[in-house]
């Protein structure tokens, strides 16, 4: 039987376009130090380190965990390096949690980062490969047609994406760690921003960020004996699913792997009605339209009706019944390899009541989500205030 596991410490850096004041080691250490402080632990308390990031070409360092081992206090410990494309921040946390759930270790530090300013992610994503369709000019070009297919399929009106972009940026103003703080963000500002990949406007896409996130995961014994004031956030369910990039008949708008992953994590957590039973969610929305798409795929709305929740304001921190991305989400901060972990750790903060100005009152259960590749890799967890 899998053993219980809880988040007992979280830490993150301020996300920004260029963190020129720190090296890569300095960046990850900043997040990890904060997670350890939050857990009231020292480096020597940690049994193992699990680190994740997106492709190594984003910084130009091959397998950077080798160089980062001393900066993360990993010397003499097991260190794993996860890479599952954009979902990696979530997958990394899950791999780390399994080290605890399997009974191997009691205190695991997990870290994810991206320091995009050290290289050029857009370039790294555009390397031509023989016999493969080029992913010209990055991820937006890949996802725009899928979004267009969603709009056609659901009949969603054009303004939905703009609403998401405004909502997440407004929420980011309440998160001091968010990269984008656009004080005068408005519907018209988003609407009038330049069209990058129709239908994705400039302000409907995520920024390129430097940033890192870290968590300390602990066994039941350790979590129960924590002397800090913060309660643990217990893992009620965690799951990963993958499917091939493309094949005839693949539903790229609502991938089967997404639905299967959600079904698995809900079954573990005993959730049958996500909208009613989950108090807050941090969901990987790098392009505005992915909010309504994931609302449907994750079971918060029937297929074709996710956009109505967005339109009604149901996903807003202020006044919504199911606030999504109170931190500002990926639309406001995107250190690619860390973006999934920020989703996972933001829900830990919500469950532990430490989200400050973007805290939702009385969170008992929360969903963290990440996806990657051609919308084919999924990682999710449900955290709860009560021991499962």
């Amino acid at each position: 039987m899998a053993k219980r596991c809880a988040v007992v410490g979280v830490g993150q850096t301020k996300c920004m376009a260029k963190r020129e004041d720190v090296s890569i080691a300095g960046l990850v250490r900043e997040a990890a130090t904060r997670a350890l402080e939050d857990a009231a632990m020292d480096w020597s308390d940690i049994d193992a380190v699990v680190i994740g990031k997106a492709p190594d070409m984003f910084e130009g360092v091959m397998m950077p965990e080798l160089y980062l081992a001393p900066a993360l206090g990993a010397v003499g410990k097991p260190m794993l390096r996860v890479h599952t494309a954009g979902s990696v921040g979530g997958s990394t946390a899950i791999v780390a949690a399994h080290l605890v759930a399997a009974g191997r270790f009691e205190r695991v530090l997990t870290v994810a980062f991206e320091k995009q300013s050290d290289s050029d992610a857009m370039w790294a994503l555009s390397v031509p490969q023989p016999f493969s369709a080029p992913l010209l000019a990055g991820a937006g070009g890949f996802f725009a047609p899928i979004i267009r297919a969603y709009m056609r399929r659901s009949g969603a009106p054009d303004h939905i994406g703009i609403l998401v972009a405004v909502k997440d940026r407004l929420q980011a103003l309440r998160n001091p760690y968010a990269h984008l703080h656009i004080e005068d963000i408005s519907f018209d500002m988003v609407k009038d921003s330049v069209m990058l990949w129709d239908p994705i406007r400039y302000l409907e896409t995520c920024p390129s960020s430097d940033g890192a996130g870290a968590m300390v995961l602990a066994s039941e014994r350790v979590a129960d004996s924590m002397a800090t004031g913060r309660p643990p956030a217990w893992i009620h369910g965690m799951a990963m699913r993958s499917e091939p990039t493309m094949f005839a008949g693949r539903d790229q708008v609502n991938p089967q792997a997404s639905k299967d992953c959600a079904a698995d994590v809900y079954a573990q957590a005993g959730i049958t009605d996500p909208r009613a039973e989950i108090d807050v969610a941090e969901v990987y929305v790098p392009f505005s339209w992915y909010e309504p798409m994931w609302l449907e795929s994750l079971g918060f709305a029937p297929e074709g009706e996710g956009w109505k929740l967005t339109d009604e304001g149901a996903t807003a921190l202020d006044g919504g019944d199911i606030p999504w991305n109170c931190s500002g989400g990926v639309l406001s901060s995107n250190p690619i390899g860390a973006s999934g972990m920020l989703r996972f750790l933001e829900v830990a903060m919500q469950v532990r009541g430490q989200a400050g100005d973007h805290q939702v009152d009385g969170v008992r259960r929360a969903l963290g989500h990440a996806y990657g590749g051609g919308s084919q890799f999924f990682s999710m967890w449900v955290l709860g205030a009560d021991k499962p």
Partner: protein
Amino acid sequence: MSPASSKPVRPVAVVSVAQSRSVRREDHRNEVEILMPVVTEVFAKIGVTKNDMGFVCSGSTDYLVGAPFSFVSALDAVGVWPPMRESHVEMDGAWALYEAWTLLQEGELDTALVYSFGRSSPSDLRRVLALQLDPYYLAPLWPDPVALAALQAQALIDAGRATEGDFAAVAARSRRDALGNPNAQVAKDQAPEELLADDYVVAPLRRHALPPITDGAAAVVLAAGDRARDLVERPAWITGIDHRIETHALGARDLTASPSTALAAEEAGVFERWGSGSGAVAVDVAELHTPYASQEGVVRHALRLADSVAVNPSGGPLAANALMVAGLLRIGEAAQRIMDGSAGSAIAHATSGPCLQQNLVCALAAEPDGKGS
């Protein structure tokens, strides 16, 4: 540090192993084309399909392919449909196996496919591997892996721990043993004295002390408990597995020792299970991922191997060294010997990083309690 348990709570075994022929250059096959026959074979050997797998985990690195997300095209070809539980490490496949083994410990899944692929031939490996180093202070100087291994070899000589003749003896034995391995790349019967006539690549390492540049792939199927016994008559049980990392700063390390290997072996229960009165570990076989001939003695010492242990009977990494594959292949070769009855107990070792920075130790036996028979 307080590992909750250094012993496996659930018996998990290697039940199938497959590998490509290791070659200097695959001219007509890309990574996926090298991998797929291997995956097909690893299933066919035990009559299963990917649909029988509870989990899939792979190890590879983008810097060999020269493109981001190189694991994705491999996964696409493996064909994870219907969707599967799947993960990837940017590490040698031995660490993918560790991740899969961990998941199987929880008791909810019974099987896992682990694979890795590495095609070193398209790139200038000595320049590519320099990019593994500290990007601010070390990589800009382009110290290549052979030069760093030579520093380690010289440190061993200076400490009186080894001679160039020892390196030649390791290489000669490895290449001779490789004559019995149809998948090996460098297989020759040459006396050490003959090898000592090789030129230095970087002193004190001569050509024979370096691993070959190899293209290849390997795959392993893991199964737990009764499922393993159902699939094969003689599973290779993993009695312990652990891995540890050392600092990246070479100047802060004693390059003549491998404390991370020793610690991983300790945590994997190697000394407790097999250390005899004298402290020497007397398993039947050890497959060591020591790419440079000079490193074998360092790892042997850390593992306290008895002189009787057959080290790298497959020929080891001096006979074939596909990056990201060679570590997983050590586990595969060791497991194969247990499954075919030629060994009762074995240790497999994998390494990563310059001068044995990170090391994994996997202990295997014919019985889940560690007894060899």
